[in-house]
């Protein structure tokens, strides 16, 4: 068992996972239920709707595609940050974590350009049911991105003080798992809203 697993701090027959890892997986299970509900609602509303615009005619597909690549890249950089953390390379960890954060901000920047264009064209959540779905789903996803930014920056700033804390690597791993989840949700959102 690796040194980071000292997070298990109680003797007993347990799951073999650290508290942080088990906790984040359970949290992600609840998040899956949250987004599964939203996607199901989207399906139900769309199937019951008399007309539904084609996503690529009203939304900006190139920007959505660029954003997808930005997020996927950030998933790679956070993995590299975790790998550097396990290899005890603090400078490398900080670089990749900062890169992850930068990419997250790029994602939000592109997103706000998209939203801004819509607002200027007088497309609001109340315009029609399609834009209601679009703004609420992408908005909730953006909130999750902001949550990830907060989590990742806390880890970045904690690095100096807590680098030798045996729990630190576990926390980076948990943040990574969460960040992948945010990424995966977007990979479902892109076809659901832009392409279908």
């Amino acid at each position, binding site marked *: *068992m690796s040194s980071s697993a*000292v997070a*298990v*701090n*109680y*003797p*007993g*027959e*347990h*799951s073999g*996972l650290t*508290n942080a890892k*088990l*906790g984040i997986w*359970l*949290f992600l*299970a*609840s*998040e899956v*239920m*949250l*987004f*599964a*509900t*939203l996607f199901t*609602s989207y399906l*139900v*509303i769309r199937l*019951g*709707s*008399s007309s539904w615009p084609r996503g690529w005619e009203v939304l900006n597909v190139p920007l959505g595609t660029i954003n997808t690549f930005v997020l996927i890249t950030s998933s790679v950089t956070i993995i590299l940050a975790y790998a550097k953390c396990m290899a005890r390379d603090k400078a490398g960890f900080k670089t990749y974590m900062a890169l992850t954060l930068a990419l997250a901000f790029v994602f939000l920047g592109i997103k706000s350009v998209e939203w801004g264009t819509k607002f200027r064209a007088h497309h*609001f*959540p*109340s*315009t*029609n*049911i399609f834009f*209601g*779905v679009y*703004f*609420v789903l992408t908005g*909730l996803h953006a909130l999750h991105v902001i949550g990830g930014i907060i989590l990742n920056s806390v880890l970045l700033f904690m690095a100096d003080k807590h680098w030798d804390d045996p729990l630190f690597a576990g926390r980076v791993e948990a943040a990574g798992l969460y960040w992948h989840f945010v990424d995966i949700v977007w990979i479902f959102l892109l076809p659901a809203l832009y392409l279908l």
Partner: protein
Amino acid sequence: MANQHVSDPTEHAHASHELSFWRKYVFSVDHKVIGLQYCITAWIFLLIGFSLMMLMRWQLAFPYQPVPFLGRFLSPHLAPNGVISAELYNQLGAMHGTIMVFLGIVPLAVGAFGNYLVPLQIGAPDMAFPRLNMMSYWLYLPAGLLMLASFFLPGGAAQSGWTSYPPLADINPGQTVWLLAMVIIITSSLLGSINFLVTTLNMRAKGLTLSRLPVFVWSEMVASVLLLLAFPPLEAASILQLADRVLHTSFYIPAGLVVLGVPSTATGGGQPILWQHLFWFLAHPEVYVLVLPPMGIVAEIIANNTRKPLHGYKTIVASMIAIGFMSFIVWAHHMFISGMAPALSNFFLVTTMIISVPSVAILTCFIYSLKGGSIRFTTPMLFALAFLPMFGIGGLTGLPLGISVTDIYLHDTYYVIGHFHYVVVTGSIVAMMGGVYHWFPKWFGRKMNDTLGKVHFWGTLLCMNGVFFPMFIQGMAGQDRRYWDPMTQLHNVPTQPLHVVSSISAWTLFLFQLPFIYNFFHSMFHGEKADNPWEATTLEWACPSPPPHGNFVKIPRVYRGPYEYSVPGAKTDWIAQDAPEAA
């Protein structure tokens, strides 16, 4: 692995002396303090929810009569001349349900009993994430206060029932604050359920295998899974309803909606029934969150007071898990008359009949456990014994509601109210009152007064039946629920005297809670000293009462199952779980 534990309980015990008052009693991370915070807060919310109902019961028993004494304190706008208006009645009704379910029983069953007892029963020094635990409570309390504050905000409290069906809930005043508070409460419950699952899975004492867990811990585990997976859909549903109200989207507003003769300005295209599906996808598992932990409490009390092992431990645990799974596929039995496809109704009818099997299995095991035991009729045992027939009535009266044919007649009548109050009030709340008497010595190192306890028990049991039994008759006579003035329908006139019986029982029920409240606070300081007065076997009694910070002086090791009572050849009639083999 076995030697990697970081926390040294004795060190904790010393550290606790240095904590300030605020860190020790207010913003505490100790599961015991948080458990008691939850306990007292949840009982207060139950009392508030009950008070709202006592006001409503005046209007039901004596329509259009001014409320005595209290009438003049009510806002003249909502209660002209002290007479409860329809608007106020609707606010009271919606808030009664919300407060009782989300701010009363769930926090009491999971937040209070679970928080205090689960770490102790598994031999852990605290929860897995103590700070998260503190955050759960400090999300729950502000959300509850926000919910209460909505009475005094412009627009008043929510008035669309605790189920908040759109499109009514989309346009009724007061709903926005309800939704905000709900999102916070749900978040708090989610954090709590993650904490319980990690704690139970990862932090059990050595030797405490899953098959040696007390039934109560199992019940909390299943309840946590239900909270974890069923609450997010309601969170999503609430977010969509919030968007409908704040961003003027139309997720739940159909095209062509006309309100009071005026066409709605919303663009439409949404589906009102979607909310019902999402709401009940949570709210049916939620029913089992309300019921399973109290069942766990009853199991502990029964085993302890019959002085024999629980009958069918494995059956009970398997049934609880089965209920957990099944509870996710029965939700639409609340929606038989919503216009859902009949084929779908049949599916939910069948699953609903199936889920009653494990519930009956659990109850049967409890009844069998009584057989041949030398029962001690202590106060907690009285409550546990009352739970059995009362929950039985509640469960069995549910069957006609789960069958679509009979449900069409009974749907939305007082029969439904009678049914679920028998389950949740004479079932869950009675069990949890028993739980308070049972674990009070653990919490404060003193016993509650037995005489006052018995007065409380008999009064409560009689009055609760007086409140809820007439509802079955009224429901079968065709009286619809949620009516501000039942007399507007002629067929309700013959059963009107039963409303008076219900109301007087409800007010008397309140009087019988006074000995309980007095007993609780008086015994806290002046009760008879006790450490393990019930001679109970489970681990929570292996540490001092009340337990010090860090709980166990020495981390216990478990050698046996949870209910080793009257073991042949043993010197005493009980062997604690942490007693070595040679006892």
